[in-house]
């Protein structure tokens, strides 16, 4: 719950409400990817970390 509140505070602070649907879809998609692959060891990508 804390996390959801923090995310909401962030949307409010940054006024980036348009990101909400993207984040929701991502959560669902990401959840599926995580469930299907089982590991999150990603290769080193220069700008994502």
């Amino acid at each position, binding site marked *: 719950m804390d*996390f959801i509140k*923090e*995310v909401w505070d*962030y949307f409010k602070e*940054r006024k*980036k409400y348009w*990101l909400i649907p*993207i*984040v929701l879809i*991502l*959560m669902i*998609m*990401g*959840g599926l*990817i*995580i469930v299907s*692959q089982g590991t*999150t060891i*990603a*290769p080193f*990508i*220069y*700008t*994502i*970390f």
Partner: protein
Amino acid sequence: MSYTLGISAFYHDSAATLIYEGKIIAAAQEERFTRIKHDSNYPYNAIKFVLNFANLKLSDVDSIVFYEKPFLKFERLLETYVAFAPKGFIQFVKAVPLWLREKLFQKKMLMNLLKQNQESFNNEEKILFSEHHLSHAASAFFPSPFKEAIVLTADGVGEWATTTVAIGKGKDLEIKKEIHFPHSLGLLYSAFTYFAGFKVNSGEYKLMGLAPYGEPKYYDKILNNLIDVKEDGSFRLDQSYFNYATGLTMTNQKFHDLFGENPRDPNNEKITEFHMDIAASIQKVTEEIMLKLSKSLKEEYKINNLCLAGGVALNCVANGKIIKEKIFENIWIQPAAGDAGGSLGAALAFWHLELKKDRDNNPKDAMHGSYLGPEYSQENIEKELKNLGAKFEVLNDKDVIEKTSDSLTKGHAVGWFQGRMEFGPRALGGRSILGDARSESMQKNLNLKVKYRESFRPFAPSVLREDLQDWFELNCDSPYMSLVANIDSKIKNDMSNDEKKLFGIEKLNIKRSEIPAVTHVDYSARIQTVHKETNHRYYELIKNFKEKTNCPVIVNTSFNVRGEPIVNTPKDAFNCFMGTELDILVIGNCYLEKKKQDEALKKDYTSKFEVD
């Protein structure tokens, strides 16, 4: 009582810093403990060290500040993917699970990891987050000697910002403007680092060292195609040449076609004149941007002091150019300018900006010479060396200086381990390898027999501050080796016409000055001024060497081999000593000669570390 712990981690160069009421107590990089270069893991050992140093438990710390904001970073990722879609799908698929599983929940993750340092720690309220470039700016301004300064930070990328301008005044620090991702001077330099076959995030200084061997033949090509630089130094990169925003490499085919070559494969391809020219070109572009930025900021804010931090501030050649142009009266550069220093900045930003606490202005600076790491008592050193089977003699303070300077005059390579370890990438006379700067063979020998690294790499001089102007064209303190300047014309040997025709590394064989071991092929040197107040023993050593030789300059390179983090403990130092062709090792008051050591203790050392 108020302790603040700053942490940087999970990208590269994890580190921890402890401050007490705004004063820096201890700081260290995790790599020094784990012996993994640029270790990016949770800095368990570094945190353990800074807490032990102050006799604290984690729960005694009032606030724990992480150096950047994960939500903001995720926002940048998402918006980048949206902007470039459908390009970048592969990176997206690889990146998002990592974020959704770990990085978005960094507070929780950090909380769990902190339990490694103290199992009973459970106060999540204490964990706070600073912004990446605010952390850099705070690390540059708050410890600086200035009451007021322009603060310029530039690196690859933080959350959104890649270049930031802030104004610091007293205890206040306000960010005035930023350049945002994907337009990044740091990433541009890294793209060329990658293209020249060096590792991104660690090989940038090799590119800088390679630059003086080449000619900036591609300067116009870079400015006409890759980057649009405005008069005030602001810039935009043409993303059609780069792949870092959406792909798994730094550059793309269009970039390679522009220069007519593919990225160098370091395992199979040698460095050629082309790579030297590429290095010289991007170095010149970087210097020009930094100069334009500096000039326009001085013009705009009319403040005489400049502070620098961020990875680009480790480009000491560009820093030297800013000094030479006399744009500012004073410049101060954070010695841990990279991400490790973010831990220091995060803690200081919280103290002064969030808690609004006053700042004591130290007319020198507040970094204690950057000697902020672990130290070992004479008793501990002797015990450790005995355990390792080392043969050593214990000297009094005066003899340590006498015998070490004698060895230097004989041309020996000396491992010098004294006092607290340095914080930041440079060895400053705490964990250093020293040599005679007058020796013609020293650069080659140290590179090939001691450091096991590329022979083109230059070495830096340590010089007594009071003698600086007699030997170098520089007249300001450079205690952190962050400025490059030319050697003085009095000690320079001009090249003959035949010598001038020599190409690249062949120039190394010419005696270019009275101190050839620290004179780069373009007569420049990365200077460390040595001050009695911050490192007394090192100062005394060079002074003694000067009395014997009339030369107040010695070679100072970090105590490690290629790919290895700088040594931290007496054991690390002894292992490095026995694994290389170092002749002498001085740890505290213990003096070790290689020829007296047990042959059986020699070991294959270099294969232990991945080539960087």
